[in-house]
């Protein structure tokens, strides 16, 4: 009987106190047992038939690897009870549990097996990025080196420690946002930098990423703004008003928060983004198509928390909110921009020119009561009167057509 294994499985069996509740007896043994090899390397293996087995001989033995019979020229008899095998230029293992190298008797019965682990040592993980949700936790993501394909099970461990003191800690909640991620749920310090790195280990070696140093306050994100409401602006067919609430978890800290709005037409996949909505919780979208359903989303960047100078991390987008612009006879303009409430001019070219004109008028023509509000009111009046004219013309047209057809029966 071969001696008990002291490798991984032997340790495992001892640890779980099974004390080998099963019995397995094979009439031969393959050497080496469960070797680990680099891709491209060679292997010399032997299958030795137990001497106490009646009629035991290596005559007629053959090998299979992952179920496929190996060419006989790769084998040779070393002696009456031992068949040797030479494999060269090995490919990476087909499954993580190891390639199955099996020694068969002449009749095809299985005499013994060994599992080959052929692969590569891990390369250095890189591109570590981390973020903290509302300063309460830390989630990190990384990219495995060489795109992770080592053909062997590779274990990734995220480590972290306070930069100037403290012991190494190991993250425990893996795969929270993808296969190479980890979540640290609590006990994080603010105003002091952390060092974070990733260690990759497999049967062929280990590798360590570069260390990322960060302060939790520099990587804060938050929840999307709640209570996003989108509504029409009176009768204006090319505008919608968007209102939202500051994310509650950080509302006492968001002195410099930035917001971003994106919107799209109902049956389109192309979003238009309105950047830099600054620290306000409302915006007016202008230049929209009349009579069209729009989906709108808002997100928040809580930069500047506790004086952080870093850019901050955008939240997820809020759930889409839909609203439609009023219908119009005239085709509306295709562009869009965020029009702030209160009549301050936006960056659109028409309104920029209008602002210049109004400024000139106030200076030279003493029109002190001119404003954008007045301009919007005028536009609404223009659209209403245009609709009325079209309706009248329609009635008149149908009246004339009716007259041309003659009296009704």
């Amino acid at each position: 009987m071969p001696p008990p294994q002291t490798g991984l499985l032997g340790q495992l069996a001892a640890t779980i106190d099974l004390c080998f509740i099963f019995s397995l007896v094979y009439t031969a043994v393959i050497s080496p047992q469960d070797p680990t090899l680099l891709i491209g390397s060679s292997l010399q293996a032997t299958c030795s038939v137990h001497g106490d087995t009646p009629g035991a001989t290596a005559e007629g033995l053959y090998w299979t690897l992952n179920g496929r019979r190996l060419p006989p020229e790769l084998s040779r008899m070393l002696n009456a009870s031992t068949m040797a095998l030479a494999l060269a230029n090995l490919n990476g293992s087909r499954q993580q549990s190891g390639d199955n190298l099996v020694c068969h008797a002449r009749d095809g019965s299985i005499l013994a097996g060994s599992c080959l682990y052929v692969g590569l040592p891990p390369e250095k993980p890189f591109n570590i990025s981390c973020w903290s949700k509302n300063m309460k936790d830390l989630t990190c993501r990384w990219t495995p080196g060489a795109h992770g394909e080592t053909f062997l099970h590779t274990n990734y461990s995220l480590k972290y420690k306070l930069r100037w003191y403290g012991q190494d800690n190991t993250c425990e909640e893996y795969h929270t946002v993808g296969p190479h991620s980890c979540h640290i749920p609590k006990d994080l310090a603010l105003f002091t930098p952390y060092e974070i790195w990733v260690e990759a280990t497999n049967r062929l070696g280990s590798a360590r990423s570069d260390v990322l140093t960060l302060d939790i306050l520099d990587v804060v994100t938050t929840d999307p703004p709640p209570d996003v409401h989108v509504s029409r602006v009176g009768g204006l067919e090319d505008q919608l008003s968007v209102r939202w609430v500051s994310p509650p978890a950080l509302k006492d800290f968001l002195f410099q928060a930035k917001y971003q709005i994106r919107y799209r037409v109902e049956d389109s996949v192309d979003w238009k983004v309105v950047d830099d909505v600054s620290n306000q919780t409302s915006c007016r979208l202008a230049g929209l198509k009349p009579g069209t359903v729009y989906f709108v989303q808002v997100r928040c960047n809580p930069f500047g928390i506790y004086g952080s100078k870093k850019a901050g991390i955008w939240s997820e987008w809020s759930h889409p909110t839909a609203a439609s612009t009023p219908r119009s006879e005239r085709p509306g303009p295709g562009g869009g921009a965020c029009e702030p409430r209160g009549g301050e001019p936006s960056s659109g070219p028409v309104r920029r020119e209008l602002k210049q004109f109004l400024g000139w008028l106030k200076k030279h023509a003493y029109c002190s009561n001119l404003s954008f509000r007045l301009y919007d009111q005028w536009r609404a009046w223009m659209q209403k009167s245009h609709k009325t004219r079209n309706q009248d013309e329609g009635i008149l047209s149908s009246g004339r057509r009716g007259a041309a057809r003659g009296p009704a029966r």
Partner: protein
Amino acid sequence: MSRREGSLEDPQADSSASPLTHLEAKIQQTHSLARLLTKYAEQLLQEYVQHQGDPFGLPGFSPPRLPVADLSDPAPGHADLPVHERLRLDAAALAALPPLLDAVRRLQAELNPRALRLLRRLEDAARQVRALGAAVEALLGALGAESRGPGPEHAAAAATDSAGVFPAKVLGFRVCGLYLEWVSRTEVDLGQLAPGGPA
């Protein structure tokens, strides 16, 4: 005619029929559980062989049917035994399976740590077969044919050589195969006990 006369839901309407009805219901319930576990056992075996690699999943793969401590295949004459005796053997086998399935799960956690569905199925199988075994024991008790006392300690030490990964894979294959054989055997045996089944 009172509202409760002839009511199928009134357990006291016909007290002489209710114990038998209750037992029949339990037999049917246990039979349904065995049928469900047979299906799960087939799925478990398929999932298991996928993760071990060929030749485990190949047709005709036949490693040595080596004995597993505390559990053997149903004997060739099992079907000829009286149904109560068959159920006793079923209950004993079902009681022996959970620690074996646990052992296979722990080995697979090392060999295939990313095979989460396989690991979950093995964990579920241990729990489910324990429930089925308890249900069969309860039926035997209700039939007045209790099993013959507690079996041997299923976690007892039995020296062996767990030599290598390949034998561990074969062991798991064997245990999954035995699990399928015994739950399907239990399903057949309970089917003969269920109302409408052969006497």
